[in-house]
């Protein structure tokens, strides 16, 4: 056993052994362990107590620090996960830097797992404490990192999710910048005729009116409610546009995002001409909303609009503290699959359009589910297409009660009470459902849909005058670009990947950036709204702080010895490392660094040090093993 003492100061370590009732003391002989500790180099005080984490135990630590002039504290007890902060704060209160504390786990690692091996448990606890003491002698005092923050947020994407997030944050008094790539906010909802969630629920039209609870319990979509989606989204847009705290940049695209939580800076490009053209049309069409949609789509489709893109752009540069990504998704556009042709074989999105335009004429309709989803290449379930199909089928039934509607599905994804009810009502209304096999997909030919029905074990043919394909929502190209610009993780389907699906569903692993809506995974408008509000509250929980404080356990690069080989830069999972070509070194941004230590392990010349886990400390610990 070999210890090297730091030269600058005399280490005075105090060791506290916890009995944890009988949890530890029942197996490990805490008394003799305490005695053993006193023989270790640097230890001037060692004691054992029943519960170190109790008030009495904490007081004991604080008194011992003062009476014995301790400058290192080692507690041998349970898991640092749960108790380290408590002991650290005790040190702090007693005037000792909390980073001069080291914890050893002799409960889980000794008394619990080696309950049947008394001798082994005792030996191991001595080993572990010895290692802890060895590391403690090399600990250095550290201070937490503080940084200021800008109380403003950037919302990327002006769909339901983005609009909801923006209005919610503005409602809390935060400054919000909303960047939307289209000339008009609203997202996909701009193209929809009705929402599945309207079915059998107090319709959104009446949400803001107090009497909706009693009056509006419509069982189906009445003609009065046809424009309710429009109404809903217009309402949201109006709230956004009239709020003085929200600045909306339409026809704009994010070019770059730099910085870190609390201090992001983004640059966006705005296409003024395209915006102006659009707004003119807005003025003309303001009296007639439904025409407006048609006009808008026509105008945007015009190629000459694209030519404006080159000139007449404006650069926007703003500082924000948090970023919410709500870039949404786009419906998958089939390429001749199932005979897609845009006229007699169309997508659900195009069906909604024809409702809006009043051009829908068909009597016999077949809908095919899972077109382009749950197959190789796109394996996920888009989750919203089944309810969309059933909802649209109901809309048709209501428009034309005599029409024949067949839905070919693989599985029906109708989650939730309301959707389940809608499915049963659809069956009641005479809409026919057939299951089909992925291996033998339906064939659409000259107005006849042929498929194999595995339940009946026979081939069926249905003739129709319209086939509607239910295509999934897919990540947009812009999302992909944005992921690259902002270095955000995406899953293998291209949707943004949150830090943890269950524990941190709206956070990115990079601090201060949040995700909501269909950018994360296909979502209904209600889910998108809920997620938008959720993301807003996550962002607000950051932005209402005075200063950001973060643990001092971060890595640092010694600029004297670094040669900018970028080994560390490539390995850092949090993109915390940047190069400084002028000095020919790499640098770590302490705000971005999460202290994982990958870089410290990767650097050949040991130029990286992870505070609290320095090479010297770790090697001291390792060398103390034997």
């Amino acid at each position, binding site marked *: 056993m070999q210890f090297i003492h730091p030269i600058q100061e005399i280490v005075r370590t105090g060791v506290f052994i916890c009995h944890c009732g009988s949890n530890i003391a029942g197996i490990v002989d805490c008394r003799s362990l305490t005695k053993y500790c006193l023989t270790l180099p640097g230890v001037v005080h060692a004691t054992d107590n029943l519960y170190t984490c109790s008030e009495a135990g904490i007081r004991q630590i604080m008194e011992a620090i003062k009476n014995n002039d301790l400058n290192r504290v080692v507690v041998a007890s349970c898991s640092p996960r749960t108790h380290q902060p408590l002991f650290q704060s005790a040190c702090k209160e007693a005037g000792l830097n909390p980073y001069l504390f080291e914890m050893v786990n002799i409960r889980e690692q000794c008394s619990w797992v080696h309950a049947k091996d008394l001798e082994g448990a005792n030996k191991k606890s001595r080993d572990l404490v010895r290692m802890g003491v060895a590391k403690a002698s090399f600990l250095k005092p550290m201070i937490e990192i503080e940084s200021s923050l800008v109380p403003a947020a950037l919302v990327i994407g002006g769909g339901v999710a983005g609009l909801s997030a923006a209005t919610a944050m503005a409602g809390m008094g935060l400054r919000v910048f909303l960047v939307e790539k289209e000339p008009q906010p609203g997202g996909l909802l701009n193209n929809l005729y009705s929402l599945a969630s309207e079915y059998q629920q107090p319709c959104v039209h009446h949400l803001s009116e107090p009497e909706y609870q009693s009056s509006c319990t419509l069982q189906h979509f009445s003609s009065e409610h046809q424009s309710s989606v429009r109404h809903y989204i217009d309402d949201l847009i109006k709230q956004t546009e009239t709020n003085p705290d929200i600045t909306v940049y339409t026809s704009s695209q994010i070019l770059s995002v730099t910085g870190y939580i609390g201090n992001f800076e983004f640059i966006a490009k705005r296409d003024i001409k395209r915006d102006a053209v659009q707004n003119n049309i807005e003025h003309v069409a303001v009296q007639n909303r439904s025409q407006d949609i048609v006009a808008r789509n026509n105008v945007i489709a015009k190629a000459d609009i694209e030519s404006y893109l080159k000139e007449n752009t404006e650069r926007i540069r703003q500082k924000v503290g948090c970023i919410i990504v709500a870039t949404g998704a786009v419906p998958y556009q089939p390429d001749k699959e199932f005979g897609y042709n845009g006229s007699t074989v169309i997508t659900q999105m195009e069906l909604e359009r024809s409702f809006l335009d009043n051009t829908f004429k068909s009597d016999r309709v077949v809908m095919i589910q899972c077109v382009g989803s749950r197959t190789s290449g796109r394996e996920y379930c888009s989750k919203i297409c089944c309810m969309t199909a059933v909802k649209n089928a109901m809309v048709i039934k209501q428009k034309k009660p005599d029409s024949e509607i067949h839905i070919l599905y693989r599985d029906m994804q109708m989650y939730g009470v309301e959707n389940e009810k809608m499915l049963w009502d659809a069956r009641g209304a005479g809409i026919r459902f057939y299951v089909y096999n992925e291996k033998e997909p339906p064939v659409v030919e000259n107005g006849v849909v042929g498929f194999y029905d595995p339940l009946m074990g026979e081939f069926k043919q249905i003739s129709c005058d319209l086939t509607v394909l239910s295509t999934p929502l897919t990540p947009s190209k812009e999302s992909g670009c944005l992921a690259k610009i902002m270095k955000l993780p995406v899953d293998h389907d291209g949707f943004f990947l949150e830090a943890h699906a269950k524990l941190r569903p709206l956070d990115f692993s990079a601090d201060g950036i949040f995700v909501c809506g269909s950018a994360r995974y296909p979502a209904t408008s209600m889910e998108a709204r809920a997620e938008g509000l959720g993301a807003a509250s996550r962002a607000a929980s950051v932005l209402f702080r005075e200063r950001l404080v973060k643990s001092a356990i971060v890595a640092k690069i010694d600029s004297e010895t670094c040669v900018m080989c970028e080994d560390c830069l490539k*390995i850092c999972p949090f993109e915390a490392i940047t190069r400084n070509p002028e000095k020919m070194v790499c640098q770590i941004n302490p705000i971005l660094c999460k202290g994982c230590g990958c870089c410290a392990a990767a650097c050949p010349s040991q130029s990286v040090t992870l505070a609290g886990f320095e090479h010297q400390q770790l090697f001291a610990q390792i060398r103390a093993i034997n």
Partner: protein
Amino acid sequence: MIEHVKTIAKQLLESGQITGFLSLKKEHGQIGPHLFQSVDQLDYLCLGDTTGTENRESSTEERYSGTVESKPEIETNRASGKQENQSGAGKSRYPLNKILVRISRNYPSDCFGILVRGCDERGLKRLFALNQLDPDKVVRVGIACPQDLADECECLEPWPDKWVNDTEKTDGSEKEKIDGTEKSDKAPHEPVRQKLPCESVARLESLEARDRFDWWMEHFARCIKCYGCRDICPMCFCKECSLQDDNLVRTGEIPPEYPVFHLARAVHMAERCIDCGLCSEACPAAIPLRTLYKKAGDIMSNESGVRPGYSDLTPSDIGNLPQTGEY
């Protein structure tokens, strides 16, 4: 061939494209690296020793294999090499890259020419990728190695991407001749690639684990910790070396804590070693370090499909390489 190199170097120097041409110089019968900065010095330019100094690589082989049978064969090789390559590339090799890194650290804005063999070029590619040299500031003039040297090196590619070609002397146009950077379709000699794993690696792998352990430990135990292997290695460009860290390898012990010392270096070399063999040549204790690093390279290419230096890696590409480091 040497005349071609001289012509190219002259051109480069005269045109002012490069500040200096780093190559070998022969003076008073001694060969050493030299940075040629004026045209008149070029007379002394040399491509390595062709007249048969002691071949240290082969003697390393002999020293550890303990056999003498291979000696006559090497003699003949050497003799034939002498005849064939009167003006060709010789065997004495120097870490020109390492010198170039040092020079360009001090003169970052100057552009230099450098004489490269296959391994030198592999080294350059890695050094570019690791930001140690700027590709725009280096002009390569390639030469291919003689067959016997390639065999001794167990070299996978004893020639750079482009090399000065002998054959062009007769049929190439004047311009092509002095250009000399045309990629020749013909490999200068067969076989193009050695089979993998190399013989030295394969031989060790055929041993029982315990024997292999003893074999290596005997070698490692001879180490006198002179750092010669690191100092000569063109890829060891760190300003401060982990091997000198008291925590990793305890100071004041000879032989150094083995195998930690040698394995730590092998791990560092995994992503870097371009298999030039200078370390083995330099090691006064004749430790077959190159064999160890060859194996590290084999593992890397198995894991990632890339062997350091063998393909043009840009910094963004190498993000996909398995990351390695010490421990």
